[in-house]
């Protein structure tokens, strides 16, 4: 699976839009990009998944350029409760045997200040 690279940490303020970019240069045709959020002492929580262009849900937006070698998670109007670790993952889908085990990196520690 393609290795992902994302910033170790980011700071922002309440009410701001936060964009976290992830690079995955060796992404394959069957790969999807997935983002998870994790609070201390809790399991990761699925945020959003996409294959190309733009995906939006009630929590976030995911922007994926045409070459799919990077992706950007956009969190609109963040609050203090958005302080967490955000993981960018590449998931292989449709390989016939079900999804591979998820490969997590160290993630991005997002700290939101008042």
């Amino acid at each position: 699976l393609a290795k992902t690279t994302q910033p170790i940490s980011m700071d922002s303020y309440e009410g701001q839009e936060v964009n976290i970019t992830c690079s995955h240069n060796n992404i394959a045709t069957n790969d999807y990009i997935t983002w998870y959020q994790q609070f201390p002492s809790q399991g990761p929580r699925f945020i959003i998944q996409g294959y190309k262009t733009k995906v939006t849900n009630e929590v976030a937006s995911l922007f994926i350029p045409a070459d799919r070698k990077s992706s950007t998670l956009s969190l609109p109007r963040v609050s203090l409760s958005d302080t967490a670790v955000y993981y960018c993952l590449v998931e292989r889908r449709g390989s016939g045997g079900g999804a591979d085990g998820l490969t997590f990196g160290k993630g991005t520690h997002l700290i939101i200040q008042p």
Partner: protein
Amino acid sequence: DAGVTQSPTHLIKTRGQQVTLRCSPKSGHDTVSWYQQALGQGPQFIFQYYEEEERQRGNFPDRFSGHQFPNYSSELNVNALLLGDSALYLCASSLFRLDRRMNTEAFFGQGTRLTVV
């Protein structure tokens, strides 16, 4: 819907002992995966169970074993515990879509905090 439930929430064991952790998947899910998360690191994939068989395994020694029951619940067993096995153990469940030959998104439990002394 109770989501993914894990037990116990915390556990302290002595080096060399054996431990069993339990997981009940989200209602409607048939696939269970286990992860180990050391402090400050991302979760690392241990193995995945589907139809009561280990379908995939990560880079973990044979001391780590598992089981899935007919009701889809699962156990993770670790033998001969080492200090380095101290971590948060996470269980995740998903549904394998036969029509699309892929799993739905993974839902994680709160984890079991294992401390080996």
